[in-house]
């Protein structure tokens, strides 16, 4: 069965290692922080200039000067640091963030990603997404495998305006964990109960299936 949003986050959380600095995008990526295993210490980076982002505040803790990149009120953990937007993106652009998790409209088998703009709809902007995909070596892209109409989001070539070129190597969808190697999608894991055939049929790009594809383990 296709993974829920929570389960996608759970699978992504398995890629988080002890001591990582992690930037989580809006949506499913934000949920990842709920599934980081015990005993693993990470620091969440937020583009507006935070390291060590914590939980939402209680009513009493709310402070207009303390928001995250989603403009939500937040708190900080011990050992947090605050800095300017230039410093924040120096970190991001300079490759200092260990893992970036973000959503997308489309990813293609070259690793191109489209995530900020659907022509004809209102363009709100790329925010920090273009810097994030260009800056991180370690990015996980989360999305549904296909849209509501059944159209695949894993394409031979992106159709929407790009957020970045050749920067995505790992994708977690509701159906599968997929890597990109040498210009092809490579199927690595299936969602529990989802067949290889279903995944391949819902992948418009070229998908390599080698050997037995294991089911994801979701504790």
């Amino acid at each position, binding site marked *: 069965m296709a993974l829920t949003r929570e389960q996608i986050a759970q699978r992504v959380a398995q890629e988080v290692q002890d001591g990582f600095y992690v930037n989580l995008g809006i949506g499913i990526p934000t949920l990842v922080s709920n599934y980081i295993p015990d005993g693993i210490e990470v620091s969440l980076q937020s583009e507006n200039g935070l390291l060590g982002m914590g939980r939402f*505040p209680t009513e009493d803790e709310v402070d207009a000067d*303390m928001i995250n990149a989603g403009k939500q009120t937040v708190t900080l953990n011990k050992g947090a640091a605050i800095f300017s937007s230039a410093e*924040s993106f120096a970190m991001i652009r300079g490759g200092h963030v260990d893992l970036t998790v973000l959503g997308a409209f489309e990813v293609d088998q070259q690793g191109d990603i489209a995530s900020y703009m659907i022509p004809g709809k209102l*363009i709100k*902007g790329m925010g920090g997404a273009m810097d994030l995909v260009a*800056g991180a070596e370690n990015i996980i892209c989360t999305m549904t495998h296909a849209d509501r109409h059944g159209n695949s989001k894993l394409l031979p070539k992106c159709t929407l305006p790009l957020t970045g070129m050749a920067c995505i190597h790992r994708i977690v969808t509701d159906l599968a964990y997929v890597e990109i190697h040498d210009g092809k999608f490579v199927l690595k894991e299936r969602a529990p109960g989802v067949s290889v055939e279903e995944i391949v049929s819902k992948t418009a790009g070229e998908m390599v299936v080698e050997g037995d594809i294991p089911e994801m383990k979701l504790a």
Partner: protein
Amino acid sequence: MAGLDKVVGSYEEAMAGLEDGMTIIAGGFGLCGIPENLIAQIKKTGVKDLTIVSNNCGVDGFGLGILLEDKQVKKMVSSYVGENKLFEQQLLAGELEVELTPQGTLAEKMRAAGAGIPAFYTATGYGTEIAKGKDTREFNGRPYVLEESIKGDFAIVKAWKADRHGNAIYRLAAQNFNPMAATAGKITVMEVEEIVEPGELPVDQIHTPGIYVDRLIQGTFEKRIEQRTVRPS
């Protein structure tokens, strides 16, 4: 105002010299750390055809959003916009132009302007619409885009405390774009919650050195919250 004292007596004086068609660099992220009262003063002057460089454009009725009400803005240079209906209307009606700029590139363009760096290379946006018409070049086998700095006729910023010389400290996440914006104006105007005497702030904890600040004023702030997210206590 004499010597190194940057304090001005009124918001009128703070924004004196602002004219139609000028470019304004503004600090703030969303509604956090925005120069509320300087924006209100810009509305009051009624100047038109402004180009505004700011990460966002406020919301309906607050922040930079209020400058849309009388159509004072010709162009926004931002990374993320459209949190307000008026913005959308004016954009669709062709009354407002938007130059979308990646957030990190925007911050760096402001810093570069203040730092005498006319242009820099970044991998951000390579192969996207953002890079169209821009020079590209490879370094160590990776392609980069050449981005130019962006300077304002005015820069408007908001800090927490500053001494009379303009040495300023920002509070928490209200720092954001303010330090870079402060360096990027031909005239930089700063408003703060509290003005203190020179010598009261720790010398090695100043975020914006006073050399960047031309005019300083103390104001009162609403500090509206855009997304009030709370957990049960």
